[in-house]
């Protein structure tokens, strides 16, 4: 259970990282909090020649308050969000979800950028950030580009990173005062990876209504115009308007064949809706 003997670098800025990770002749891995990469290194599932630690970069440990969103640096941790060291603009959604990720000792090092780049389908950030409508900013040798979180994840453990690119920030929109959200994950044991995730957001002021089926074994299924599916915006009890048959059809059409699996996913979304009734 010891990693292979790799080289280590800790650049002081993003440019320093880009110059190291663009080298195709060897296996280079970016290390942030290391809470997913660490176990994989210990088990020698990953055997890099060089590990580039990005946690020394001040820019990635900062939060930028913009007009209608906040830019959260890639190395901000789950605990930073849980403890409100990062000001919340999501009416409690991100702090609540952060508090349910793995265990406190993991949250103290695990990072938001690392989690979505690792692209484990069962992880929490990918689902809730897709529901909220967050974007990521990537920087590489050819400049900067932005993607919706759900487009950044290509499939299980695969993020849309070009050679030499890294995630620098996760941009979270500021939700309106009437926004409601829900998040439910089905786990057999606290802190383990979820078997199913349901997440949704209704933000009438910004005319946004999104639903997400997460933990699908691939990228989350995002319904970006979910008004009919999850119940009308004006209703207090959203779960009443939930069209579970339609939800079931939706995920079946997207390749979820196992009926039990579908039922757990539909139930997860319903519970997410029920939860918002009391918000």
């Amino acid at each position: 259970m010891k990693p292979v003997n790799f080289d280590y670098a800790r650049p002081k800025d993003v440019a320093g990282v880009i110059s190291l990770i663009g080298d195709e002749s060897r296996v280079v891995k970016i290390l942030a909090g290391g809470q997913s990469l660490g176990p994989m290194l210990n088990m020698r599932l990953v055997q890099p020649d060089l590990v580039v630690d990005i946690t020394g970069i001040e820019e990635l440990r900062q939060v930028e308050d913009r007009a209608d969103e906040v830019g959260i640096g890639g190395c901000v941790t789950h605990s930073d969000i849980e403890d409100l060291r990062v000001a919340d603009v999501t009416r409690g959604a991100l702090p609540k979800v952060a508090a349910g990720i793995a265990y406190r000792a993991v949250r103290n090092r695990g990072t938001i950028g690392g989690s979505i780049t690792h692209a484990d389908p069962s992880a929490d950030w990918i689902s809730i950030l897709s529901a909220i409508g967050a974007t990521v900013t990537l920087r590489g040798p050819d400049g900067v580009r932005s993607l919706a979180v759900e487009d950044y994840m290509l499939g299980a453990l695969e993020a849309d990173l070009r050679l030499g690119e890294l995630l620098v920030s996760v941009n979270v929109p500021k939700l309106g005062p009437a926004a409601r959200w829900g998040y439910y994950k089905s786990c057999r044991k606290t802190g383990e990876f979820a078997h199913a995730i349901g997440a949704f957001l209704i933000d009438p002021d910004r005319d946004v209504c999104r639903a997400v089926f997460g933990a699908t074994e691939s990228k989350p299924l995002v319904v970006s115009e979910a008004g009919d599916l999850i119940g009308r915006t004006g209703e207090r009890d959203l779960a009443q308007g939930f069209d579970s048959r339609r939800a079931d059809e939706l995920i079946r059409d997207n390749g979820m064949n196992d009926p039990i699996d579908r039922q757990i996913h539909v139930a997860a979304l319903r519970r997410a809706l029920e939860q918002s009734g009391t918000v």
Partner: protein
Amino acid sequence: MVQITINDRQVSGECEPRTHLADFLREAENLTGTHLGCEHGVCGACTVLVDGVPTRSCITFAHACEGARVTTIEGLDEDEIAAELRTALSKEHGLQCGYCTPGMVVSARDIVLRMEAPSEHDIRVALSGNLCRCTGYVGIVRAVQSVIEARRARGIAAVPGGGRDRLGPAGSGHAGAVQENKRERAAPAEAAAATRAAQVSRDDNWRPQTTLEDSFTVSHPPEVVWDFFGRVEEVAACLPGASLQGAAEDGHVEGQIKVKVGPISAEFQGVADITRDETAKAGTIDGAGKDKRSNSATRGRIRYVVREGDRPGETLVELSIGYTLSGVLAQFSRSGLVQDVAGRLIAVFVQNLEARLNHEAGGGTKETAPESAALDAGSLMSSVVIGQIKQFFARLLGRR
């Protein structure tokens, strides 16, 4: 050289970049109170305080904690909360063998410090990252609860966030940049030296651990596709990452396949036996292989049937993929992830297959066949995924 403040003492020591904090504490500093259980971040036995907050020392590298403040169980002798916890744990019989206790005390101390008035359930959830196999947790939870109640009764309030006031991973951000040390590297052992896997044993009792079903449609007639599947070298050329060693003889081939899934990459060396049933238009590929890097082995059986597609001139290929994975990779494997990867592999395979068949239909020879696409090409991947998204929205809007 790494410098860390351990239990209020400045320590500097040599260690490799791969040395995790727990090994550094135990091996270099002889602080063996920090225990190693699972060594992959699940059991919590190695939990220590880094910059005052609990951290898994088995998945935190010592070099990543340069300049940080680390407190181990040995450093909590004089700590007020830890002292109260020790008393409560003995009173409530909160330990038996003691293996989990150092990590348990560190996590429990954090709960006492941070949470104002947690219920029993809250405490259990907060302690769920620390496994104890002796006590059943009842005594531990009671001990934590009693310490919290006593402290709150004495007017000592919780400290939200445990007093942490900076952003980023615990232990990070204290030290400057580190240049790569450009270590001398032994030349990688060449795959050619790999011992060849033995003939696939014809063990009829072998049953795959996992079986997944899939199918795909090719826009060429069944007899063309069936014929193509008989040409093993060309089929292998369509499979991303696969290559053969020598020609196929009597349906027996040797070769390798490289699979890259996110950070994991494996290269399976192995053998396969192929049988084909002309009348049923069905084939079986029995294979076995070994990945030298991770020392993982796999055994698999792919069955395929070639049928008429829904539209004339199209072929439906039905697949049944059964496999058993053993070794390191098996520890990580979740069947759903394998299914997603298999689905992506098949998508690229079909794309390459179509390209070759189109090339042939246009009169091209196999020598001039188009270059096969690889699995981990980002642009290709996104085109597959974008296709799925478009399909999804088409369906969504089509209904109602």
